[in-house]
């Protein structure tokens, strides 16, 4: 059931929330479009936004399959990074031994630049999507791991005290209290990692691939086709944005109870 006044209000709020960003974007695009002619910038260096759009329309059948490949790699990387990180975090929080053995390695693998190990991964896993998923995992697992560890330790102390007074088992405290209290932190980790996963997938494709946006960009560069490159860059951005917004949507659904969630229409 939707009552009209409330709907109008949420529409007004949507304009207030997203309006400025949309407005700025439109301004930048117009400025860009106009200044190419105005300052006589050669189109082989910087194409007009309209030219990029035309380029995309003329070749969307070719470029979209590349995007699906990269999306799949990034999404798989993010999901697997999440699964691995959460399992490790649970181990780190509960067993000192795991903390002492795993944490240093987690930090160490984070310190190695992904671009340095990507060629190695291609040798190990071939030119298919597997090494791209691995690079996506390697760049994106760390924020989720660190945040989940922090989150699992952030259960309300009074609530834990209450559970202890009821002689709750460790398992009960973990499942009924700690897991839910960790969710805001876990989602914060996923937000950061969602964009990193796209970077990981593209870096993997740069090193050796026969499809994907990274591959598309490398080909466009070899042809010195700046318009194609802009199409690729724009699609990379869209991809990152899509994964990010997906995480935000899931977060809103699961964290409806959290303070960060918009409470009601009273806010406006």
């Amino acid at each position, binding site marked *: 059931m939707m009552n009209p006044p409330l709907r109008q209000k949420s529409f007004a709020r949507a304009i207030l929330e997203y309006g400025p960003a949309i407005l700025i974007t439109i301004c930048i695009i117009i400025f860009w479009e106009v200044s190419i002619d105005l300052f006589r910038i050669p189109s082989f260096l910087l194409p007009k936004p309209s030219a990029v759009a035309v380029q995309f329309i003329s070749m969307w059948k070719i470029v979209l399959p590349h995007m699906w490949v990269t999306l799949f790699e990034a999404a798989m990387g993010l999901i697997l990074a999440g699964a691995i990180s959460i399992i490790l975090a649970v181990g780190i929080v509960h067993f000192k031994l795991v903390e002492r053995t795993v944490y240093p390695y987690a930090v160490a693998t984070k310190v190695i630049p992904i671009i340095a190990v990507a060629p190695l991964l291609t040798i190990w896993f071939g030119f298919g999507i597997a090494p791209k998923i691995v690079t996506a995992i390697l760049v994106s697992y760390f924020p989720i791991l660190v945040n989940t560890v922090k989150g699992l330790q952030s259960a309300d102390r009074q*609530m834990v005290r209450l559970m202890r*007074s009821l002689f709750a088992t460790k398992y009960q405290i973990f499942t009924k209290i700690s897991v*839910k209290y960790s969710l805001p932190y876990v989602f914060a980790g996923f937000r950061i990692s969602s964009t990193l996963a796209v970077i990981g997938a593209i870096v993997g494709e740069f090193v050796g691939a026969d499809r994907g946006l990274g591959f598309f960009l490398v080909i466009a560069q070899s042809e010195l086709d700046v318009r194609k490159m802009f199409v690729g860059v724009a699609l990379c951005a869209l991809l990152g944005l899509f994964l990010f917004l997906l995480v935000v949507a899931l977060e809103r659904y699961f964290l409806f109870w959290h303070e960060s969630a918009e409470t009601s229409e009273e806010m406006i």
Partner: protein
Amino acid sequence: MPDRTEYISIRDISVQFPAADGPILALENVSIEIYKEEFFSIIGPSGCGKSTLLNLIGGILRPSSGEILFPGNSSDPFIKRGKVSYVFQEPVLLPWRTLLENVLLPLEVLGLSTSDCHQRARDLIRLVGLEEFESAYPKALSGGMKQRACIARALVFDPSTLLMDEPFGALDEITRTTMNLELQKIWLQTRKTVLFITHSIQEAVFLSDRIGVMSPRPGYLKTVVEIDLPRPRSIDTISSPEFAAYMATVRGHLHGTAGVK
């Protein structure tokens, strides 16, 4: 007036906490007999070990020396499982659960969920006056309402003893007085043995059958003041001369002008 059956017997309890520069003595030789179904308050300055005393009775903490005996002369905290219930100063509720689901939490933890437990939880929510908010989430509730919910949650598994650690300390004066009246009503209806910790002399005198006055650290029991005012006590009771006299007595003991060790 409560019958004088000994219920919880605190015998010569001392508690030491380890610290960097030697152990800190939190409680020193405290002995209290708590009677069945009485409302017993403990009042004292900050850091006198009031909460420590409560944690001892709740079985969360072990004394360094001395013993606590529960009904049946048992000192095993596991026997108390499901017998003792807490209300803390901060009204902590799980934000992702509705009020009703929060009240049901202890039953889930204790493995006592039965078919009629929803009805029992609803009855208690009505008892604390929150029947309209059964399916509300905690962020929609005020501080006083949250604390009422915590009291309902504490009563849901029908414990014999209620341990209340400054439950109304974070509330404003007006809400606090209302909550005192409410708590008296709930206590008269449910007849639990209540151990109530407070900083407020008025609150202690209003609610209690007896008040234990504690000294500053290391905490020891200075004296026990018996409050012989008829129940139910009302707002008018607070302005009566007898009430004022009891408050003066407790204040005197607290500030050392009477009954110093």
